[in-house]
């Protein structure tokens, strides 16, 4: 299954090779042109059927949050730093896989018996954490682990509950999976599917891809925060699980093109597909770079709600995923009739 394969692959920002290889294999034979650019983005092109067609770019990032090896102690434990935004408190007592050979390791913590009661109230800082790979000492560890090795979470793909799944890296392999499926059809518009790198460390790949493609309109397909859990107030829950894909209005990096967002929302409503607006303005995504590329590109974002995003136990509804896929497809079929407002020159 595509989503399982994609989420189980390792692709911490800067090390997207494994994900890239899967995508290249999956889209092979479905495109009119595929390039991997110099920063590692995949740009897949599918020619449209219309005479004077729009250039549409879909974008999903291949990378995921993770860790990177920064040192090895004399006793053979691995020191690390986070890559992308991670709440360090989720790291304790978790399993990881290190480097190309996926060497298993665990992030340990001092036994509760050996802690002062006051310690139990404090969060542990990343600089005080370490990974145990079972090495005898530094030299022994260096046989398997090297400085700069990327570290991903070891978290399997599990269906559970009411048509939900738990896995790592749903942000944004869910977008990658949708883009792959979109390339299997042909539309009136010219389609460029950009699978981007390094979103989690500052939207690095998307800007480059948008510059190369220079589309008339762009749609970012994402996995986004879903905080409909105890501890969060009603107004704080960005999205609801099971209520369909979420369309962004604004976040820390961009305002979505209002007409484009409305267009998406109405498409879903008209076709009886569950849809919601993302109700908080936290975070950001590739739209932040795309919408200010070149002369500016009308950009919108549609996302599958994910609980516990940026953790090894991300949770998503398969219904939301299917609904998001449908809306993106309707968007591609309908975009030819969408009027893009050009700036008028005042004479």
């Amino acid at each position, binding site marked *: 299954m595509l989503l399982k394969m994609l989420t189980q692959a390792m692709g911490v920002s800067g090390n997207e090779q494994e994900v890239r290889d899967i995508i290249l294999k999956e889209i092979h034979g479905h495109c009119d042109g595929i390039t991997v650019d110099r920063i590692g983005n995949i740009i897949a092109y599918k020619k449209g059927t219309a005479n004077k067609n729009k250039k549409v770019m879909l974008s999903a990032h291949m990378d995921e949050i993770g860790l990177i090896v920064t040192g090895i102690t004399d006793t053979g434990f691995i020191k690390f730093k986070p890559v992308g935004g991670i709440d360090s408190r989720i790291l304790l007592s978790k399993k990881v896989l290190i480097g190309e050979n996926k060497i298993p*390791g665990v992030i*340990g913590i001092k036994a509760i018996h050996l802690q002062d009661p006051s310690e*139990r109230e404090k969060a542990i800082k990343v600089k005080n954490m370490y990974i145990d790979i079972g090495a005898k000492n530094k030299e022994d560890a260096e046989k398997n682990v090297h400085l700069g090795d990327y570290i991903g979470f070891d978290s399997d793909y*599990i269906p*559970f509950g009411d048509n939900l799944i*738990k896995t790592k890296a749903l942000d944004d392999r869910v977008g990658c999976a949708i883009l792959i499926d979109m390339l299997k059809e042909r539309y009136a518009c010219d389609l460029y599917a950009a699978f981007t790198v390094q979103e989690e460390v500052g939207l690095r790949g998307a800007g480059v891809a948008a510059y190369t493609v220079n589309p008339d309109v762009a749609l970012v397909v994402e996995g986004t925060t879903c905080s409909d859990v105890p501890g969060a107030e009603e107004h704080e829950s960005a999205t609801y699980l099971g209520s369909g894909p979420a369309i962004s209005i604004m976040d820390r990096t961009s305002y979505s093109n209002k007409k484009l967002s409305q267009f998406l929302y109405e498409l879903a409503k008209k076709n009886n597909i569950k849809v919601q607006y993302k109700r908080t303005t936290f975070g950001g995504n590739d739209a932040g770079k795309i919408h200010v590329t070149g002369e500016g590109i009308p950009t919108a974002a549609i996302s599958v709600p994910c609980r516990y995003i940026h953790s090894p136990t991300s949770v998503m509804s398969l219904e939301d995923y299917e609904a998001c896929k449908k809306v993106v497809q309707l968007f591609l079929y309908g975009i030819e009739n969408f009027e893009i407002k050009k700036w008028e020159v005042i004479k």
Partner: protein
Amino acid sequence: MSTNDFLLTLSSLTAVSGYEHVSLTEIKKFFQPYCDLVYDDKMGNIIGVKKTKTKTPHKVMLAAHMDEIGLMVKSIDEKGFIKFTNIGGVDQRLLLAQEVIVHGKEELFGVISAKPPHLQSKEEANKAVKMEDLVIDVGMEAEKVKKLINIGDIVSFRSSLTTLMNKYICGKSMDNRVGVAVMIECLKELNRQDIDVELYAAATVQEEVGLRGATVISYDINPDIGIAIDVCHGDTPDVSKDETYVTSKGPVITLGPNIHPKLAKKIMNIAKEYNIPFQTDVDPGNTGTDAWAIQVTRAGIPTLLVSIPLRYMHTTVETVCYNDIANAGKLLAIFIRKLEGELGELLCY
């Protein structure tokens, strides 16, 4: 079954304190090939007996607790999220983003959830999330959750066994399935061999909540020698060397008031004679293990404690080195084989 396979199965079984019976049949199976008799008592302790041809033999009891720490359902909210409490000592800091199985009418997968980090203040982010602010998300509507799960249902951690370098293995409930593994390794060593003593290998219940199974089983068996097998703290970078023992450097033999001095001397001498690596632990009082309960049963029982160094005790990534398990099994087998004839002199002060 290869050593790793059998630990894999042992570790994967659910036996949260007080609810060990759900894995009773499975755990019994490990003893059957090497024992003349396997039975369980009223509390759920499992006992494997290896008989002897000696008339009126002395009795030796090995005891390793099979229970593990876990959680218990406290309430279910209107959205179907589950509030929980702990069974045994659980560090609240490691619960975030942890995977669990809720043992209701069905086994339900769930993840532990909390207020998302971006909604927390800076001060909150520097603090540990309190257990009372955490919930389990089983991804179902409240109505369904309430149908399948009752208050008081147990929750176990879900963490598969992982093999690291140098025969290190890591997973949940290694405290104290490794003790059970040591008993089985010992029974394997003694398989098809005649011994002079009658050997009882007991997998005990409810150690984590107060050494309860061991109390009852040592009263019932009333052995001449009781040997508790448990885990002790392994070496990690965040703990001083004085508080820990080095993993892979052999089982740990405890000295102190909980331990019969002559027995300790004997087992150490045997280890030296047979070149089995071991380490020594000095415990000035309560060892916090089944040995503490066994020692004062009935008229008093000479007691030993053999431990396996284990890193990250009471987490989902408890880590041990298999060599220590194998060495402990071997050492105990030789020790038992060497208990011949009258034990009076060995056991008297």
